[in-house]
């Protein structure tokens, strides 16, 4: 069977690129290469992962400098052509700065960095989540200081109308409320796609819960869903 080709982008300051790479190669058993931010040719891959980290030290604004790097133009083109892009944590921040996803990510409500496992309710109507049940509650860790999603009320309406909200912070029973919201995100938004559905940004780290050794493989479904989409 043809192996799927994944690629993980690498910016100065990325620090989850190896974690994503490991899951794709060792757990999903697919091909995965690194793409350096100065490259411009990103064709011939099925899915691009923009990993977490502190690209360019988070200077100026998280993700803003990465969005000006050489690869940005190619990424936009890849997205226009319908290519699959998933941005995790800093990757999500970069995607909003690239305007490939609407809205922005503000400083956490507590003003502190937060690292912990949170509950997410999954909308399975996307190429990134088809392997989950609809409204399934999963446990995936977050690790960020700027994950507080914000968007104008017009964008909000759009997101809901187009079914773009894919992950929302919730309690263990799937209720989205203030006390289950770790960072102050609008409506508990943890992950969204673009209108076309080929670009996903999410603050939680699915690659951190994709192996049995962690006692939790709730994140693996994201990668399996992408694989499933590209098989067909």
């Amino acid at each position, binding site marked *: 069977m043809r192996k799927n080709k994944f690629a993980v982008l690498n910016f100065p*300051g990325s620090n*989850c690129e190896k974690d994503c790479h*490991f899951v794709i190669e060792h757990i999903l058993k697919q091909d995965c290469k690194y793409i350096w931010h100065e490259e411009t040719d990103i064709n011939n891959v099925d899915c691009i992962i923009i990993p977490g980290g502190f690209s360019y*030290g988070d200077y100026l604004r998280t993700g803003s400098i990465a969005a000006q790097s050489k690869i940005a133009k190619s990424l936009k083109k890849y997205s226009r052509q319908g290519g699959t892009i998933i941005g995790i944590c800093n990757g999500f921040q970069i995607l909003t700065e690239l305007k490939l996803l609407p809205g922005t990510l503000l400083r956490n409500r507590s003003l*502190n960095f937060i690292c912990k496992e949170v509950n997410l309710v999954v909308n399975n109507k996307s190429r990134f989540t088809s392997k989950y049940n609809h409204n399934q509650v999963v446990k995936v860790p977050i*690790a960020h200081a700027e994950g507080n999603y914000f968007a104008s009320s017009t964008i909000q309406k759009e997101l809901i109308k187009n079914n773009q909200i894919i992950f929302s912070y919730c309690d263990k029973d799937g209720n989205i409320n203030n006390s289950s919201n770790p960072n102050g995100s609008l409506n508990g938004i943890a992950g969204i796609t673009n209108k076309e559905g080929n670009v996903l940004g999410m603050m939680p780290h699915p*690659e951190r819960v994709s192996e049995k050794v*962690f006692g939790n493989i709730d994140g693996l479904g994201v990668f399996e869903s992408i694989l499933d989409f590209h098989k067909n």
Partner: protein
Amino acid sequence: MNNLPFALENGLTKDEYVSIVKKLNREPNANEIGVIAAMWSEHCSYKSSKFYLKKLPTKGKHVIQGPGENAGIIDIGDNQCAVFKIESHNHPSFIEPYQGAATGVGGILRDVFTMGARPIALMNSLRFGNPKLKITKKLINGVVSGIAGYGNCMGIPTVGGEVYFDKSYNGNPLVNAFALGITTKDKIFLGRADGPGNPVYYLGAKTGKDGVKGAIMASDVFENEEELDKPTVQIGDPFKEKLLLEACLELFQNKGIIGIQDMGAAGLTSSASEMAFRSDNGIMLNLDKVPKRDSSINAYEMLLSESQERMLLVMKEKSSSKINKIFKKWHLDSTEIGEVIKEKNFIVNFKGKTVVNIPVSILTEDCPVYKRPVKSPKAIKLKDGKALKLKFSNKKLASLFKKIIKDENICSRRWVYEQFDYMVGTNTITEPGSDSAVIRIKNTKKALALTTNCNSGYCKLNPKKGSNIAVAECTRNIIASGAKPLAITNCLNFGNPEKKEIMWQFAKAIDGISEAVLEFNTPVISGNVSLYNENKSDSINPTPVISMVGLIKDIKNKRDQFYKNNNDSILLIGKIKNDYGSSIVSKYVKELKNKYKEPTINLKEHSKINNFIMKINEKYKIQSIHDISEGGLAVSMLESCFNRNSLKGAMIDLNCLNLQNILQIFSETQGCYQISCKKEIAKKILGESKKNKIYAKEIGYVTENYFSIKDYFNVKIQDIHKLWSKSFPR
């Protein structure tokens, strides 16, 4: 002696200056004074501690590199090795908590990756004063966010540590940072400058005026806040360090590297002279070529700057184009700035003049070593707890239990570790909050367990026994996670060594550590000393912080401290005695306050119990192992109930222990564990314990909802968990 005043200003004593003049046969110039003073500072020279440090056991079959290099190295099998060290950043963290703590992390990381290892875990040991003081809150917030800011950005998980409060740390918090990396035996790099004629390269960030004289400041005692000297604190840039890490690891794939060392305390001076010294050579530097942040910087400042994120490299041959290509990719400077020379001198040229020309030996082996006088303090008569008879109503006992759970040294540390990315790297298989953090090693069955400990209250009562206990508690934490203890690194935080009683504490602590590491076969492979930790009124408690690393050969033997299944038996292994000295319970019972001796410890017995636990863990499927330490058996069992997946309860019956006093549930006896396992397995373990003459008793079983001690008290687990979770003084 024209330059004597300047020498004194730089922290040298008159006697020291006289001996320098004698050695040089002339007076040193201002630059030379600065360089010598930095290298002769307590921080760089270990002049007060060296005499004692030599006594520490440092050898073992598995030790690849002991003390004396940037970090120590142990063999962990399969051609792999673990590189680790702990270091203090106490004084800078008091002056400027965020930057002080952040650069502490940065410095220890460079010590590890300069040896060729990719860092995979960080820990920290933090000590603050009275938690009710405003300044303590400011310090905690600054220090914790500084560590988070640096470690998180570097993408290296902070997986464990300790936070302790004691009023002796008022005005002098302790911030000790630990880093561990992994490499293979054929990819170890040392801080050497072999081969006269070989080029010396400067790598990393540009040199600025920050941190000038930091090494000298590290040994100041702060009298008041106005005296605080902010410009001596370095400014960290974790992004730059991340680039430096990746660039260095890429560089290490090349051939022809002779040696590399990070520019830490006393920056360019210490790295260059130490590398030359280790190879019995000299070194010549041209400061005109040093990348500068500011063109007005002079030779003195350049030599003593502690600007962060810089390395010094010696190559076999000129390799500028190869090096520049890598460093340019990572947006970093790399420049040839000098060469190794045969003449054993440290020679520095700047603007066409030789500004320093002194023997390397004066900066290294000829630094003074003081055998400072020691004197034991006046003995205070303390009791042992054997005769203690105290009656407690059940109601009073339950309320005492709650007070202990809320205590600042017992309650949950989640607020702290949630600010650290403890998962990045996807190796953390036991998160902070259990006995040890456990890091798996990808593509093997192995994992490493890490822990750090020191109960300075015990050390204050008896520095030798307290140090025994610090090592012993580490072994229990390591063993409770299913690992075998391998080696330690230590950070020895003490007061002013010129005071005889302080030096006595130091000498005793060294004895205590030595005795224990010999018994447990966990040699000291690296470490750091921080002296002059005092405030206006007093010294800190003697605080020899011990960090230990252990190996799990097969991760199927990994354990954590949490109860898992209802009806699993709970076994106590090791006999609980009456140990109340500096215990948590003694804070809340006035009859116990300041009247009792430090906990008893019998290293031989302790070792026997350790071996027994390791043996049964390999043989049987044990569900949880947790040691007994601060707060005693009661706190240990309660902590085991706090399983993150679902809270558990326990039904405990202590009748079989024949306690003479119910307060023994809080006794801090050393060498005890409590474990949980299926009933059938418990029977077998009890059988084995008899055969091995190990004290073991079945004291209860795992339940849900309630934590109950039969005939005494019964508390709702959710309530007490809430109390424990919310009490951290932030």
